[in-house]
C-alpha cells in the first residue's frame, strides 16, 4: 500500500518535469524501497551508491563545517544525479538531463522528498 503511494510520488516527479528522467527511493543502508528507473540500470547498484554517497555527504558537510547536509549533486557531462534525505531512514535519488533547470529540479525534488518522508 505505502509502496504504491511512494511509487505514485515518483511517477508524478518523473512526469511533472521534462528534466527529470528517473528516480528511486532507497533505505539509508542501500536497499531499494521503490524505483522508476530505466531497465538498463541495476536497481541494487543505484541503491547502494545512493546510500554511500549520501552518507559520505553527511560526514563531509559536518566535518568541513558546512552544517547539516541538504543534498548531494553529482554533475556528469551527460546529466545530473541528485540525492536528498527523504526522512531519516530513506534517500531520494533523482536523475536529471544535462540541460536541466536545476533550480526547478531542486524544488520538485524537495517537495517529493517531503511527501515520501511521511510515507516511509
Amino acid at each position, binding site marked *: 500500500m505505502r509502496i504504491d503511494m511512494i511509487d505514485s510520488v515518483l511517477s508524478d516527479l518523473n512526469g511533472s518535469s521534462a528534466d527529470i528522467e528517473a528516480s528511486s527511493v532507497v*533505505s*539509508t*543502508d*542501500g*536497499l531499494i524501497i521503490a524505483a522508476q528507473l530505466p531497465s538498463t540500470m541495476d536497481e*541494487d*547498484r543505484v*541503491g*547502494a*551508491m545512493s*546510500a*554511500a*554517497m549520501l*552518507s*559520505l555527504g*553527511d*560526514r563531509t558537510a559536518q*566535518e568541513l563545517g558546512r552544517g547539516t547536509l541538504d543534498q548531494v549533486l553529482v554533475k556528469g557531462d551527460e546529466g545530473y544525479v541528485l540525492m536528498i534525505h527523504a526522512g531519516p*531512514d530513506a534517500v531520494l535519488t533523482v536523475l536529471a538531463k544535462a540541460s536541466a533547470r536545476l533550480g526547478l529540479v531542486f524544488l520538485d525534488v524537495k517537495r517529493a522528498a517531503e511527501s515520501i518522508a511521511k510515507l516511509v
Partner: protein
Amino acid sequence: MYHHKIIFTGPVGSGKTTAIETLSDVPVVCTDQRATDSDEIGKAKTTVAMDYGKILLKSGETIHLYGTPGQDRFDFMWDILTEGGIGLIILVDNSNTDPIDDLAHFLTAFSDFIGQTATAIGVTHTDVTVLRNLHRYHQLLERFKLRCPLFEVDARDPRDMSRLMEALLLSLDPGIRVPASEADHGAVSSQDVKPDRH
C-alpha cells in the same frame, strides 16, 4: 615521507569498524547507517561507504586505515578503497553459518589486490562460537595457494589487532624491525615500512 594505506574487509559483522576504532590514533570517520535487516545481521548499524582511521607512527609517518562495507551490494567501494593500498586485512566472523565460505568469497573478490600486495586474516568472535582449531581455515588457504598469516583475534583488543597488522607488514617486508617487547602499534619501526611491491 611515506603514507601507507591498509584496507580492512570481510563479511558484515566481522569487526572491521571495531578493529579500526581499536587501532586508530584519531577519532574514526565512519559511515554507519541503521540496518533495515538488523535481525539478520545481528546488529543495529552497518557501514555503507567506508571507515577511516589512522595510526601515527613515532617517525611522523602515517598508516591510513580504510574499512569497507561487508555487503556485496557495496562492492564498488572495494575497488575504490583498495586503490594505492599496501595490503589487506580480512576479518571473518567465526560465529557465522559458514565462515570458510565467507573467507573464500573475500579471497576471490580481492584476489588481484592480494596478488599484488599481501593479506593477513583475523578470525573473530571465537568467544561466541567455540573454535576447535584453525585447521579448516588453513585448508582453504592451501586451496587458494596462499601463504599468509591467519590467527584468532578479538577486534576490540589493541594487542590482537596490532599483532595482526604487524603480521601483515612483516609479510610485505621481512626486514621490518618490530621490537618484540611492545605490543602496541607504536612498536612498528617506520623506517622499514617500505612498500617494495607497488
